[in-house]
């Protein structure tokens, strides 16, 4: 009987756990290790951050779901992977430290036959002095952060109601951030909310980003066929900024955040400051703090993980210039290079390189988005790897691995631009493939038929529908597996 250990119960790890348990016969063990007792539908944190939803609406306790499904849940943090085992065990193992209040601080070594690293991002606020809720800016990355941010926003609205002028800055807090889509969403939700609460006039809303152009979103922008023309996501996004009177600061790396002042550098090397009353700046991501050791206890973290802490998988990591990047550089099985029973999925795998063109200042400060790994591909990777492992358990080592490369996978992204069943709006985008493939689509790297964008109330309904569908699916309610990732 086999044991599969999954590190992380986010979008990718939780999806993998549910699919594995569904596929595997009784007797095989699925263990999930994750530090938080609750699951969070992170995309809806945006609405918590403007007071449209509560934490309870975007989270639920994992234990009852796992108990019902026969999945063993350990509320703990993984700290080390021993892919070759140790002196006592032949098979690989992981060291975990419990965060479960009833076993707080207890350490354990779990052996495994297969291991999935789905630990997502470490929110690296420390990369920028003063960034984050423990510093001088706000975040919506967790439901708790979003709740604090919502309270801060309410105070700003109160001040605006008293007739004071306020500057609200939303964006990314480092030159190498990803997730610009989330910052974009939060910007327009804030703008929408200011209008709804009747205080837009006195508010200056500024979007601060590391993107070269608006509409880049870390995927190098998109081209759409619209009304007989090929238009760009740049023009489309700029149009929204103009319509909603939102200012933008582009190509920026935030150097530090002082109380009420952001210090930033731009691609041409110029430095600037921006005074603010409210700043929600996303942090850059890096891999979870995991170490790796060989059988003798030697540190092999450098072999297993890329310098940014993400797990190296079946990608082509050879350094090459932007012009030589190809779709084939991207991984498809998510299997670790050295260890065939170890996989990295979701944000936890190391991408071979960015998608947007890399750029830096004359002094060498990198200012370009890291590649996003959004919910849809993260879920697909979870499912695909679950099937690969189930096949190998049932049919043996030679069972072929399932594949899902971001260079042959499409994605739908719905960026909320304001909540409300009648007044809401969102920008709905589909792109195929996520990573451009200029061999297949020489014009723009993506299919012009399948890469689309539109703005409207219907897109908001879709966003809301996804909220309910994914919570239903994550709760593993009847028929959950019929809802695609």
């Amino acid at each position, binding site marked *: 009987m086999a044991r599969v250990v999954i590190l992380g119960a986010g979008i990718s790890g939780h999806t993998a756990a549910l699919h594995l348990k569904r596929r595997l016969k009784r007797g095989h063990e699925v263990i999930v290790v994750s530090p938080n007792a609750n699951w969070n539908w992170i995309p809806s944190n945006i609405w918590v951050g403007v007071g449209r939803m509560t934490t309870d609406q975007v989270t639920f306790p994992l234990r009852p779901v796992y108990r019902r499904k026969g999945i063993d849940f350990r509320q703990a943090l993984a700290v080390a992977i021993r892919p070759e085992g140790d002196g006592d065990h032949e098979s690989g193992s992981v060291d975990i430290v419990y965060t479960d209040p009833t076993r707080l601080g207890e350490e354990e070594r779990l052996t495994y036959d297969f291991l999935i690293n789905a630990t997502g991002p470490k929110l690296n606020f420390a990369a920028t002095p003063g960034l984050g809720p423990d510093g001088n800016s706000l975040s919506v990355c967790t439901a708790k952060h979003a709740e604090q941010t919502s309270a801060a926003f309410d105070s700003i609205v109160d001040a605006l109601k008293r007739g004071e002028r306020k500057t609200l800055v939303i964006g990314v807090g480092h030159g190498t951030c990803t997730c610009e889509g989330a910052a974009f969403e939060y910007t327009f939700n804030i703008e929408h909310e200011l209008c709804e609460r009747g205080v837009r006039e006195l508010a200056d809303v500024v979007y601060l980003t590391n993107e070269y152009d608006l509409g880049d979103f870390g995927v190098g922008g998109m081209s759409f066929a619209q009304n007989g023309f090929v238009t760009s996501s740049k023009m489309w996004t700029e149009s929204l900024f103009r319509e909603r009177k939102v200012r933008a600061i582009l190509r920026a790396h935030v150097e530090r955040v002082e109380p009420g002042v952001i210090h930033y550098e731009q691609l041409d090397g110029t430095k600037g400051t921006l005074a603010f009353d409210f700043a929600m700046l996303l942090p850059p991501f890096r891999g979870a703090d995991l170490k790796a050791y060989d059988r003798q206890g030697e540190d092999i973290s450098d072999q297993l993980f890329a310098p940014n802490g993400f797990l190296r998988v079946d990608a082509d990591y050879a350094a090459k210039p932007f012009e030589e990047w190809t779709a084939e550089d991207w991984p498809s099985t998510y299997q670790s290079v050295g260890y065939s029973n170890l996989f990295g999925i979701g944000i936890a795998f190391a991408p071979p390189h960015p998608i947007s063109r890399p750029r830096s200042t004359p002094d060498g400060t990198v200012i370009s988005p890291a590649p996003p790994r959004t919910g849809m591909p993260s879920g697909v990777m979870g499912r695909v790897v679950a099937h690969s492992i189930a096949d190998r358990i049932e049919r043996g080592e030679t069972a072929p691995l399932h594949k899902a490369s971001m260079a042959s996978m499409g*994605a739908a992204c719905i960026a909320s631009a304001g909540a409300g069943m009648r007044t809401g709006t969102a920008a709905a985008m*589909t792109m*195929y493939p996520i990573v451009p493939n200029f061999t297949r689509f020489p014009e723009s790297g993506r299919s012009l038929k*399948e890469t689309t964008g*539109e703005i409207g109330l*219907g897109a908001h309904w*879709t966003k809301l529908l996804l909220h309910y569908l994914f919570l239903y699916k994550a709760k593993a309610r009847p028929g959950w597996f019929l809802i*695609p990732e």
Partner: protein
Amino acid sequence: MDDAASSIAAAPLPTRKTLRARSSLPYQVMRFVAFNIRMLRMVRKGHH
């Protein structure tokens, strides 16, 4: 005016008709259905 501001200022503004369409209930119900179909197609592509 910096680069970003001049680029935004030059962007096309939606007409009143476009803005009405974006919030018109019957039209948006159609767009909702159309977008969900498109999204399902995308999902199917992601499954190979």
